[in-house]
């Protein structure tokens, strides 16, 4: 099911939680609603569910205006952060609940519930109460209960935040598997960029209620629209230095240290810019490489297959992944080359991408 948001705005008294949101979310995909905490991503999810009424704007599900439709009529499944299982009902009764409310015939309930239980791998827990389940199992039950209605849209609010690290990895793959098997349009909220990158088909990145970019994870990573997007994705964080373009050369602010790269060509003279460098875009220059600048090695962290090196670029500390084959020592001054990928130039005042 395709979801179209038109100027969707939600205001709480003076706070604008979701600000003039316009986008189209493709059907049948797993989309991540990503952003720092308090950016309005959960609010947007509840606006989509209908629990939180809109202040203004319109929402369409497959070209049908649902902006004023009651939550129960939207055909959605919602999994809450705390799972919200009914504590007095068994797993089976929990999953049956939505069907019983809809007065579905008994045999059909039986069949659909056991189908769902099989899908989320909880068939052997059917007679337990929620309090007798682990976090991961409760999560599965909550997903089953949301899915048993055969919703057109599945919404998950921070589905992994209450789980420990190992379970989180397991459950995020489970969510991916269930989504792929059922092909249900799914939107999940997360503040963890790695989580969003690893399982989603597309990421909707938000900041203070405003949409920053919507794109598949890899292309958002490689092609960020503005400084915030570049900063938010990637671990370790992207390196960021401020400066000016002078005669197609980057000059660090309050310094005469320069940096050379193909990408600076064609940028107007004297522009104030932000240069963002992904750690993996920084490498030791060899043979014919264009030398961007020279840097001193401050620290080296060997981490198995890769090596994180801290470089002093004038007064700035840069994080870089440098090929393990090169012999490096602390305090060496090495020539640095910048790859094409992962080097971004942003306008300093608008924070929009220039190159």
């Amino acid at each position, binding site marked *: 099911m395709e979801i179209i948001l038109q100027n969707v705005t939600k205001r709480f008294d003076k706070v604008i939680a979701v600000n003039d949101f316009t986008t189209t979310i493709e059907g049948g995909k797993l989309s991540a609603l990503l952003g720092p905490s308090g950016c309005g991503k959960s609010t947007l999810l509840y606006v989509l569910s209908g629990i939180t009424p809109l202040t203004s704007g319109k929402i369409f599900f497959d070209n049908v205006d649902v902006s004023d439709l009651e939550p*129960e009529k939207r055909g959605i499944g*919602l999994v*809450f952060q*705390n799972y*919200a299982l*009914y504590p007095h009902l068994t797993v089976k009764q929990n999953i049956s*609940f*939505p069907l019983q*409310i809809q007065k579905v015939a008994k045999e059909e309930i039986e069949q659909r519930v056991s189908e769902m239980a099989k899908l989320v791998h909880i068939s052997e827990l059917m007679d337990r109460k929620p309090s007798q389940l682990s976090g991961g199992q409760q999560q599965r039950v909550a997903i089953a209960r949301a899915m048993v209605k055969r919703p057109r849209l599945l919404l998950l609010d921070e589905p992994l935040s209450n789980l420990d690290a190992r379970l989180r990895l397991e459950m995020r793959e489970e969510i991916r598997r269930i989504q792929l098997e059922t092909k249900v349009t799914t939107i999940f909220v997360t503040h963890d960029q790695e989580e969003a990158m690893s399982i989603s088909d597309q990421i909707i990145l938000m900041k203070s209620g405003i949409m920053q970019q919507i794109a598949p994870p890899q292309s958002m990573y490689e092609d960020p629209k503005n400084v915030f997007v570049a900063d938010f994705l990637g671990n370790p964080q992207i390196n960021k230095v401020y400066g000016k373009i002078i005669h197609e050369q980057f000059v660090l602010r309050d310094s005469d240290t320069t940096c050379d790269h193909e990408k600076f060509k064609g940028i107007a003279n004297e522009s104030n810019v932000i240069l963002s460098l992904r750690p993996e875009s920084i490498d030791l220059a060899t043979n014919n490489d264009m030398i961007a600048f020279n840097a001193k090695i401050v620290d080296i962290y060997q981490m198995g297959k890769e090596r994180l090196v801290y470089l002093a670029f004038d007064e700035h500390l840069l994080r870089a992944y440098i090929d393990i084959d090169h012999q490096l020592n602390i305090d060496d001054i090495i020539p640095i080359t910048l790859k094409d990928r992962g080097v971004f130039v942003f306008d300093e005042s608008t924070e929009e991408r220039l190159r």
Partner: protein
Amino acid sequence: MKKQTLNKIIIYTLLILGGIVMIFPFFWMFSSAFKTAAETASFPPKWIPSIPQFLNFAKALDYAPFDRYLINSLIVTIANVTLTMISTILAAFAFSRLKWKGRDTVFTLMLALMMVPFEMLVITNFQTIANWGLSDRLLALIIPFTASIFYTFILRNFFMSIPDSLYYSAKIDGASNWQYLWKVMVPIAKPSIITILLLNTIVSWNSFMWPLLVINSRGNRTLPLGLYAFITEAGTHFELLMAASTMIVIPIIILFLIARKSIVNGVARGGLKG
């Protein structure tokens, strides 16, 4: 070691003494119910009757229509408890889950009403009942006791502790407010509801002052009233009075024994929370 045993001895002695003080009246009532008239007045007192007088019970029933009183008590208690429970659940829902303007102000005002002592209400209630022409009818014992601010307060607090996400979850599952109340909230609040039910039953069953004011005719007496009247009716037949008391107390004792855990739990929980 020695000090501990000494402490234990002191504690147990005190507890046993306390227990005797609590149990003694019941024991005295029970044993007197089986005594002959002479035995009840004998000095030194006779603890155990020499020949249990089972006939006392039959005689007591002959003196006054205790079966009628019992039926009246049952009608009044069941009606009170059922109606109070329904109004309490609905009010607690309205004051916790539903959102409406002035909700909390209204609730605070209702709590303030709890300050008004029952004795003050008796006069106005009596007037209302008289104006409605209900004096000396069982309805007069039912209508003024179909709602309770105190029970509403207890249940509302419990309802408040149920997370919002359950409500929204049920909404999305297609449940109406009504369905959510009865299918989710009430089952979750079962311990609280049982406590309220039991407390209300005991209060209603033992209620004495109000019935004494509004009921005159013999046929409309409840058990406590009947017992009170029996003191004059049975004259000096102390053993018959005790037999009648025993019959009245037994249902409550049985109820308490069955539901002891719920009562203690409910009161203990309410105490901790409050």
